[in-house]
């Protein structure tokens, strides 16, 4: 009888603190969230980052502009091509040189391929976190095709370092172009398949509609970029409003959402994938002929066959590799649109071959900081949806 009496008493709840991550598979890396829970409601959310801090900015200051390029691969390791493109664009702006037209088109192609592969993996993992396994398997198969194409292009699949300051490392082959074009023609039907599985799925909509809502003004004030910002209805895309590479010569739309919830951000990114496909198709069709490295001997490495034949070129290459080029004193900031948002490189040059200060403006860092704003007041299950929807990679966040 004593036990029955106990159950009649009012049920006392107390605030529970749990640590989500850093090893939790749904945190997409080593993000740790300390959640204070009242029942199932999140009262307070505190993110902890830095588990993957490698000091990229400090390392960059101690390397020449050429040698720091592979560091940018390791920022957002699932779309390293886009980071390389961002890095070389910033360095080119600092040097005051411009890549030839063919190199610009090739860079646009590979950057959009990187965007596709990153968005595909985002789609797969985001829906996997929420409980759908099938799209993940299909998504990984499509991503594999893009990685194979990267392998044909430059030999590497993940850390590519393919774009170079002043152009790209090597010209693309006919085999690459043929296989890419086949992929591009086939891709819209694949997108239709994914969307059939997800977009109108009732469970999916229950889990994402009106979850993690952030208004237009607030999204800008928090400094969000990329799909996370456009989901809130802000028409801001670096590719459109400060075009780099060949983005001013292709047609594409910038999709924007209405409400700013998880579902809108999903729709925006899915449409972005279709647009990326459209950009690649146009670039392949318009691809101009010509050189793939800029004719700027003071800032770009001489061609390999000339180094082996000619003494002057050998000396020139030696100086560029050991000392680095002599750069005008000044500072530049160049932002590029990577799959996660706006990736910016800020360089301060003091006239030597190494940057005096290299700063990486990482979109994931800002997006991780908005987690408390999105999660507090919601349910603990929505925390997982929110982590998926802001699309962070911790390698970039921690740098």
């Amino acid at each position, binding site marked *: 009888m004593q036990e029955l009496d106990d159950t009649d008493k009012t049920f006392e709840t107390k605030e529970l603190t749990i640590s989500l991550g850093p090893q939790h598979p749904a945190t997409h890396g080593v993000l740790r969230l300390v959640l204070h829970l009242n029942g199932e409601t999140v009262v307070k959310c505190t993110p902890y980052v830095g588990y993957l801090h490698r000091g990229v900015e400090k390392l960059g200051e101690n390397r020449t502009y050429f040698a720091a390029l592979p560091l940018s691969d390791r920022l957002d390791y699932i779309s390293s091509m886009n980071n390389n493109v961002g890095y070389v664009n910033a360095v080119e*702006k600092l040097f005051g040189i411009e890549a030839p037209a063919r190199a610009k088109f090739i860079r646009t192609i590979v950057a959009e391929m990187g965007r596709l592969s990153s968005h595909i993996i985002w789609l797969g993992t985001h829906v996997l976190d929420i409980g759908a396994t099938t799209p993940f398997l299909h998504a990984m198969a499509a991503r594999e095709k893009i990685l194979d194409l990267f392998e044909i292009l430059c030999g590497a699949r993940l850390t590519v370092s393919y774009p170079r300051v002043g152009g790209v490392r090597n010209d693309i082959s006919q085999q690459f172009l043929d296989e890419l074009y086949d992929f591009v023609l086939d891709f819209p039907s694949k997108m239709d398949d994914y969307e059939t599985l997800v977009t109108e799925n009732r469970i999916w909509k229950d889990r994402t509609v009106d979850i993690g809502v952030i208004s237009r003004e607030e999204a800008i004030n928090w400094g969000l970029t990329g799909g996370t910002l456009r989901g809130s209805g802000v028409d801001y895309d670096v590719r459109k409003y400060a075009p780099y590479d060949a983005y001013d010569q292709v047609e594409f739309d910038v999709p924007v959402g209405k409400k700013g919830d998880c579902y809108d951000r999903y729709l925006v990114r899915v449409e972005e994938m279709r647009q990326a496909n459209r950009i690649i198709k146009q670039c392949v069709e318009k691809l101009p002929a010509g050189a793939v490295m800029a004719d700027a001997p003071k800032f770009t490495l001489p061609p390999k066959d000339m180094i082996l034949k000619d003494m002057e070129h050998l000396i020139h290459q030696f100086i560029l590799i050991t000392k680095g080029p002599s750069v005008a004193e000044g500072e530049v900031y160049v932002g590029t649109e990577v799959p996660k948002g706006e990736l910016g490189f800020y360089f301060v040059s003091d006239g030597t071959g190494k940057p005096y200060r290299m700063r990486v403006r990482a979109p994931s860092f800002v997006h991780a900081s908005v987690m408390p704003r999105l999660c507090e007041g919601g349910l603990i299950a929505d925390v997982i949806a929110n982590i998926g929807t802001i699309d962070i990679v911790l390698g970039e966040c921690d740098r």
Partner: protein
Amino acid sequence: MQPIAIAENIKDRFPEEVLDIREFREQVSVTLKKGRIVDICRYLHDDPSLYMDFLVDLCGLDYKGKKENRFAVLYNLYSVEHRHRIMLKAEVEESEPSIDSVISVWRGVDWHERECFDMFGIVFKGHPDLRRILLPEDWEGHPLRKDYPLKGPGPDMEWKGFTDVLDRAKRYKEFDWYQK
């Protein structure tokens, strides 16, 4: 608006605060005194013709031995509506490395200021939660300062968390996992 016009606008409005205006590759940076940084940011954010609603980036700079004031804090501002950009640089002296926080203007500056404090030791007055962010809480020194060695403080000054892990690994090695 052209970036140089924005710089002139700031100079007209706050003549005593502006120290220098520089243009390099069509990008303009305005060097400021740190005293009224919040007022200047508030003005840039609220003025309808400027409307710098988006703080792209905030980072620290260390000009050790190059400039009179050792540190600087860089504010990279952009207007989503007008699509123009300006960079502000507030000078911070070495003797008192602190500056007012602009978190009241842009909420997203939170982690940028924490990172700047972590890496340079610049204190942001008025920041609600100024802790280290990328490095452990008990880390000593500020790595992005120019006098911090690239390979760390040295073998006998390792971070305590690291030596603890080494000790633990040693103890576990001695433990007999397969005892009968």
